[in-house]
């Protein structure tokens, strides 16, 4: 079992010059380019996702579960274009989600725990995209595409879409616990323990959201103050945390087997230079 922590052989360095030139150099020479590819794909995906889901389609924050048939039909007609265009964009780019899962599985591979953790995570989260995202997109598209559809049917589609999206819980619940366990057992210090505990908080949000399947109004319905808004804050903090931590992980990566070295001050500068990000 090799434990070389002597880092990858670093090429001389990117040429001074345009940002595009530096990026091209990294693309050709940076030994961590695959990891950076996965990381940037994740960040870009979340940005597009946020723009599409919030201002374009108005699918988030979710509209109310207690609306009447007529109100629901009105919502679909009012958002007709936004829904169809936005969701089409998601259909085109949702493949980007695999990069995040791959990077997270990679983090577990770098840990001192069994490979089973990473593989479990990949399989669970690959499945998650179907009920947890794509069904919402299909069903809302079908709901919007025929403005003359019977409002009662449209209402069924509305319930189907939002409940499947918000109510798909188990994958994120157990997936987070898998990552948590891996982090807490890890001896390679790939990710900090506090983030392991934060995974527990994220897993608990999936418990808190369960009443959305029961309530049509109040703080525990699918857009309730507790089950959506507070949950979103927790999820937002969690997601922001892991995006930053994965970035640091890539910067620290030494392609060895033992504990991941910390990022020292001069390493930080070098790593940023390698990654092409300005300090």
């Amino acid at each position, binding site marked *: 079992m090799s434990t070389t922590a002597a880092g990858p052989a670093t090429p001389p360095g990117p040429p001074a010059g345009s940002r595009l030139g530096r990026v091209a150099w990294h693309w050709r020479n940076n030994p961590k380019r695959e990891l950076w590819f996965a990381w940037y794909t994740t960040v870009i995906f979340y940005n597009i996702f946020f723009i599409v889901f919030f201002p374009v389609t108005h699918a988030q924050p979710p509209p109310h579960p207690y609306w009447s048939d007529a109100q629901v039909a009105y919502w679909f007609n009012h958002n007709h274009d936004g829904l169809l265009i936005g969701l089409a964009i998601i259909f085109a780019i949702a493949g980007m989600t695999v990069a995040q899962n791959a990077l997270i599985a990679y983090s577990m591979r770098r840990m001192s725990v069994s490979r089973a953790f990473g593989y479990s995570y990949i399989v669970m989260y690959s499945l998650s995209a179907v009920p947890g995202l794509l069904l919402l997109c299909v069903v809302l598209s079908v709901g919007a595409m025929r403005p003359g559809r019977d409002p009662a049917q449209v209402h069924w589609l509305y319930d189907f879409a939002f409940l499947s999206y918000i109510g798909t819980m188990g994958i994120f619940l157990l997936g987070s616990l898998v990552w948590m366990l891996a982090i807490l057992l890890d001896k390679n210090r790939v990710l*900090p323990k506090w983030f*392991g505990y934060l995974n527990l*908080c994220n897993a608990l949000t999936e418990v808190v959201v369960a009443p959305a399947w029961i309530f049509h109004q109040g703080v525990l319905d699918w857009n309730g103050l507790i089950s959506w808004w507070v949950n979103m804050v927790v999820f937002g*903090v969690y997601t922001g945390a892991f995006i930053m931590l994965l970035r640091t992980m890539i910067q620290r990566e030494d392609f060895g087997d033992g504990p991941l070295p910390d990022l020292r001050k001069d390493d930080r500068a070098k790593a940023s230079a390698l990654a092409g990000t300005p300090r």
Partner: protein
Amino acid sequence: MTDIAQAGPQPGAAGRPPGESAERPARAVPGQPDMWVLVLFEALVFTAYLAVYLFHRSAHSELFLRSQADLSPWLGTLDTLLLLTSSLFMLRCVQASRAGAFRAAMSQAFITALLGTAFLASKITEWALLVHGGHGFTSNEFFTYYFFLTGIHLLHLLIGFITIGVIICQLRRRERRSQEIVETCATYWHTVDLLWVLIFSLLYVVR
């Protein structure tokens, strides 16, 4: 949670220089600093839940008052006493472990678990009585909050049992015991206790 008694280096919070000896000098906080992140975060989230509760309570004070009357203050008080006592025993467990009296520490840990189980039994009984009396999760707004808050708290308690299990495992081993892990788990247990006190005050006492 890492096992720190390897030859020398202390994993745990990122950034600790390798080579620090296992005999730790005075630390800023007991247990892993990371656990305190969790404690703070959970406290914040619970505060948010309780704030929402209070806000809605003020909007429907009559309904909430009426429903609160159906709660048993005796059971609530019993629960609080059980958890406070369990925290006391947890504290003694940590002290015993620090002093090297591992046998004693283990019995303290077991007693803590026992008291926790008693709390669990009491809670379930109370829930059963309420449901039997016609007050369920969906009965009215107050009881939605009641079952939600006590339910989430109970979940934290169940996780607490796992942490006690970790403590017992740590105390049992001879070679790779970690005081840090024991204290980390103890911190979590105290948090469970603290959260209950908050819930108890707001749901049972404040009228």
